[in-house]
């Protein structure tokens, strides 16, 4: 802006000199012409000089015209009667001089007004551009601190500031933003503009010019105030937006909680109902169960107890995740060894599903929590087995992927539609086609939380020929990724 200022000053000072120069040039040319046309009579000389004065006034403004008119009067008197000198002018020449001066003043004033008008229009246009820019920037729905950072940065250039800072208090939180221009000496004239929304003061804007610069003009100060008002509006808007977002988030959270609550209640009650029914039936002295019926009832109780146990374990894990208590206790562990143990355990369940495990003998160890990775693999493998048709095969594949270990668990079950692939990792999400007997909808959510806590990622992969493949990656070292 210092640059802009200097330009403006040059534009204002420049015309006066240029005007005088042009005016003189015009008169010299006019005088020469008048001399040349003298034989044609004095009238033509006056006309030619008048033209010179007019040109001088148009191009050089008021002062250019005045100088030109004075010079023209002298030239005219010299032309008409050289012996009489400058002071011995005839009344005729005096009238011409007055007319010259009048023309110069009128034309100069008109031209000067037009120039001023042009300057003002240009300034208004700059102001409008600045305010327009500010309003689009600040109403873009960004967060208050982003709005302010942008705002102070934008003001630096047009106002020629060495630094600009804003300190406001929004809903009890202090927000600061500051921008500086490098290489400018601080400590120049400073303007402080209050930031007010409605009648509530939020804080203030402090705009400082480099040392040695002139203070702001009234116009500049007014523009700065307009810009500040614009920022205040944006801040207010951003604050309201943030409140609305919070309210929305709150609503979503309580919706989720309600869904969770009803899901948990249902999932807990169902096995309990089976257990209670089985046990009370066995205790019923009036009922006569043969040995096989008794065993059936007891097996139901056992299965439902296991289901309940898994569910409670998952809910506790989820609670741990929500409480931020899921911190991996890393040690050097071989994921292939963990996978072997998990496969061995799941095979014991005795479902009619084959499990294939493959990995390269060179698979490196990774810094992971072995118990948590065990749980991830268990969840994925149990899911895969549960969704496999009898006689199906689940393939577990471990590979090194750069600085990470990747595990992939693929089944030949019904697969997951593309549009559900992200959702399956949400807590309590069950596939639309999932039967009632399916899991709690927590296994993948917990797996994801653990993998993410390890700095890894988990996703559903495309499989050729149907089925589902869940893959995850955990970095070899804690610092990687």
């Amino acid at each position, binding site marked *: 802006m210092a640059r802009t200022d200097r330009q403006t000053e040059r534009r204002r000072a420049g015309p006066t000199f240029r005007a005088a120069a042009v005016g003189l040039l015009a008169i010299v040319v006019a005088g020469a012409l008048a001399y040349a046309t003298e034989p044609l009579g004095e009238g033509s000389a006056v006309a030619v000089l008048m033209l010179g004065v007019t040109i001088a006034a148009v191009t050089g403004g008021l002062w250019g015209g005045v100088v030109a008119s004075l010079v023209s009067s002298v030239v005219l008197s010299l032309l008409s009667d050289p012996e009489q000198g400058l002071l011995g002018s005839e009344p005729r020449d005096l009238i011409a001089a007055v007319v010259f001066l009048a023309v110069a003043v009128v034309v100069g004033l008109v031209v000067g007004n037009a120039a001023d008008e042009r300057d003002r229009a240009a300034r208004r246009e700059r102001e409008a551009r600045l305010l327009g820019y500010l309003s689009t920037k600040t109403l873009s729905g960004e967060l208050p601190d982003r709005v302010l950072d942008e705002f102070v940065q934008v003001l630096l250039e047009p106002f020629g500031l060495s630094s600009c800072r804003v300190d406001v208090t929004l809903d009890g939180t202090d927000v600061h933003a500051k921008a500086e221009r490098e290489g400018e000496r601080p400590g120049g004239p400073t303007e402080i503009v209050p930031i007010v929304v409605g009648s509530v003061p939020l804080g203030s804007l402090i705009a400082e010019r480099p040392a040695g610069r002139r203070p702001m003009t009234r116009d500049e100060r007014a523009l700065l105030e307009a810009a500040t008002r614009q920022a205040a509006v944006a801040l207010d808007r951003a604050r309201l937006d943030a409140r609305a977002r919070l309210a929305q988030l709150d609503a979503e959270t309580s919706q989720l909680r309600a869904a969770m609550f009803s899901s948990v209640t249902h999932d807990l009650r169902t096995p309990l109902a089976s257990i209670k029914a089985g046990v009370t039936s066995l205790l019923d002295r009036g009922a006569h169960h043969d040995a096989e019926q008794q065993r059936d009832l007891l097996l139901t109780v056992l299965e439902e107890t296991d289901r309940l146990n898994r569910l409670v374990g998952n809910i506790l894990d989820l609670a741990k995740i929500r409480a931020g208590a899921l911190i991996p206790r890393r040690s050097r562990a071989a994921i292939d060894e963990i*996978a072997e*143990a*998990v496969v061995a355990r799941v095979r014991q369940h005795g479902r009619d599903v084959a499990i294939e495990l493959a990995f390269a003998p060179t698979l490196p*160890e990774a810094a992971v929590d072995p*118990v948590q990775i065990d749980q991830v693999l268990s969840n994925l493998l149990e899911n895969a087995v549960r969704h496999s048709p009898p006689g199906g095969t689940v393939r577990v594949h471990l590979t090194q992927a750069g600085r990470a270990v990747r595990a992939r668990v693929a089944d030949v079950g019904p697969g997951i539609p593309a549009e559900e692939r992200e959702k399956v990792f949400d807590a309590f999400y069950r596939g639309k086609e999932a039967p009632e007997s399916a899991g709690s909808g927590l296994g993948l959510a917990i797996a994801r939380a653990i993998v993410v806590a390890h700095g890894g990622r988990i996703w559903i992969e495309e499989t050729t020929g149907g089925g589902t493949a869940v893959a995850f990656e955990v970095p070899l070292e804690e610092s990687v990724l």
Partner: protein
Amino acid sequence: MKVLVVDDEPQIRRALRTSLEAHGYEVATVGTGDEGVVGAAGGAPDLVLLDLGLPDMDGTEVIRRVRAFSEVPIIVLSVRESQDDKVAALDAGADDYVTKPFAMEELLARTRAALRRASPEEPAPPAMRFGELEIDVAKRLVSIGDEPIHLTPTEYSLLEALVTNPGKLLTHQWLLRKVWGQGYGTETTYLRTYIRTLRKKLGDDASRPALIITEPGVGYRWVAEPGP
């Protein structure tokens, strides 16, 4: 055979008492760690079933106090969520753990194994057979069928540590100190490498284990029952 049950939940005490008595054990039950230590000293039980979540004392502390005067086998009962407590309990001298809720048959199997280890009916036989696998402890020879298997001294020490503690969950730290020496305890990579080689030489598939079971993050367990 006398079993001391230390658990603060009356329902668990009752279920354990009923089931254990049905299998011919004599059962004493207490509800606090203090009573547990006193019971272990005064009651001379053959085995202690100890819940880790006691109201008055950390279960690991109970193990330490009991271990000060007794080598009685201790089986820890704990919930799945306290993995670290389990390892700490094992390192403090517990013989095994069972995760709550447990199946009674599993608890009974662990109980029998622990009692067998504590009071072998006969001195350790000079040779043990696990199906095709034969281990001659006296001569330090291992063979499958009649095919001799060559093991390095470390591999043999590791195998010996496992087979002489059948059914017992041996923690990484315990195995490292037993096989490599007191200065070891955290070098799990060594241990893993040797276990892998040993499994390979003995023809055991870790994902279908017949001999050694891996407990990720905890240790290993020899599961093969002796017999032809």
